[in-house]
């Protein structure tokens, strides 16, 4: 495929995208993060604001390398972060990602994590909070190559809808060509628990504060233990407060 051709709806990875907005930032440059054998890297990508933003990151983990990646997608119109990860033997990849949107925002996080060799570990946690008429999508593919025995891959994907007009798409996908692998994925789309909101209100918390507390807890799962946990949580909270 010509890397410069604008994708269409038929491209699976762009199924829920805002192609008009994407056209304005196309083509998207590939950023590359290579982590040498046995070394560790941490990176955070935060996108926000009214301009359309698309990022595409390639992560290449040599044997025994580790990478902690945090993504925070707060774009107000269109924000897309695509991540392709290749894990060599014994490498470890941890992703903590959150997207928070309102209005007409289209937010996307697309990951393809390839366990190319044995005994690599991947952990992906994605949390979305969607208000107004926002759409948040997560397409997460995990590929376990032939011979990548001892693979341990897990994805946890949850989205919280704050209004009837908001949409969450979640598509975890597994492609396994090895034996002896452990792949887990959980996926849930829901609303804030009405019983919990009433419990907090009955103690005197106004509705917006009760929602904020519960959403903060929900989002905290994405950044627990991240190098920039505090800064990321702070930015997420600021965006949440603007939406509630």
């Amino acid at each position, binding site marked *: 495929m010509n890397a410069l051709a604008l994708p269409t709806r038929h491209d699976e990875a762009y199924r829920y995208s805002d192609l008009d907005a994407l056209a304005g930032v196309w083509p998207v440059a590939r950023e590359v993060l290579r982590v040498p054998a046995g070394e560790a890297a941490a990176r955070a990508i935060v996108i926000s604001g009214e301009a359309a933003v698309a990022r595409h990151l390639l992560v290449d983990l040599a044997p025994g390398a580790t990478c902690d990646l945090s993504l925070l997608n707060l774009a107000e119109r269109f924000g897309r972060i695509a991540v392709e990860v290749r894990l060599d033997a014994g490498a470890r990849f941890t992703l903590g990602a959150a997207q928070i949107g309102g209005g007409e925002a289209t937010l996307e996080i697309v990951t393809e994590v390839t366990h190319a060799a044995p005994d690599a570990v991947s952990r992906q946690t994605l949390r979305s909070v969607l208000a107004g008429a926002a759409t948040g999508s997560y397409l997460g593919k995990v590929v376990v190559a032939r011979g990548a025995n001892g693979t341990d891959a897990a994805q946890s994907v949850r989205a919280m809808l704050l209004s009837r007009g908001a949409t969450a798409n979640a598509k975890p996908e597994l492609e396994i060509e090895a034996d002896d692998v452990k792949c887990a994925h959980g996926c849930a789309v829901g609303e804030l628990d009405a*019983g919990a909101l009433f419990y*907090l209100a*009955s*103690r*005197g918390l*106004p*509705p917006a504060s009760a929602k904020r507390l519960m959403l903060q*807890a929900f989002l905290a799962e994405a950044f627990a233990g991240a190098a920039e946990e505090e800064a990321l949580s702070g930015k997420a909270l600021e965006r949440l407060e603007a939406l509630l």
Partner: protein
Amino acid sequence: MLKIHNLHATVADKPILKGLSLTINAGEIHAIMGPNGAGKSTLGYTLAGRPGYEVTEGAAQLNGVDLLALAPHERAAAGLFLGFQYPVEIPGVSFLQFLREAANAQRLGRGEPTLSGGAFLKLAREKAALLQMDMEMLKRPVNVGFSGGEKKRAEMVQMGILDPALAILDETDSGLDIDALRICGEGINAIMRRPDKAVLLITHYQRLLDVVRPDFVHVLSGGRIVRSGGPELALELEEQGYEAVAA
């Protein structure tokens, strides 16, 4: 303090409360007893404003304030506390953080100064000690992993911190062992038995009333109070059952 007049309420369009009237004065402790399905929990939820509990007729005032016109958090600020029969677990939200925000939101709502972090912690420590609860537990997420008895004691700690004028305690005694029942009961006495406060206990059993002695006992049946009396009424119920006494 609390004046309920001819209260009718429905849940999912089904009438549950059918003309309930009750007056509770400051300094009094009342107990409501009654068979399952009589509407006891519905009374608590309706007064606290739980969504889905629709008032179709009647009035309820707390210290002259129309409770039914207020949102749930405003009812709390007006002085109402509901002790839940089944306290809700809220993963990730710390007890202390939420209680401090709640206490200060109530104070702001009443135009009172808010509590500093230090003053709040001191208050929380004092109330936790009163209910023999480890402060470490209050640093954990709300009710998560708490035993039935710990949840009920945590409810009483919250009541102590929030310092309401009126507490409606919905089966605080259910799920408690003998020691926890005594600790909760003594906690209720210490926090609420004051001339400017009042309590409505919802219970099935005499045993809580042995610790928290009520001034008045009411029998709720079919969505209305069908009999009222002094503490001796609870003993009569215990001996003869609801059917004989309510008939």
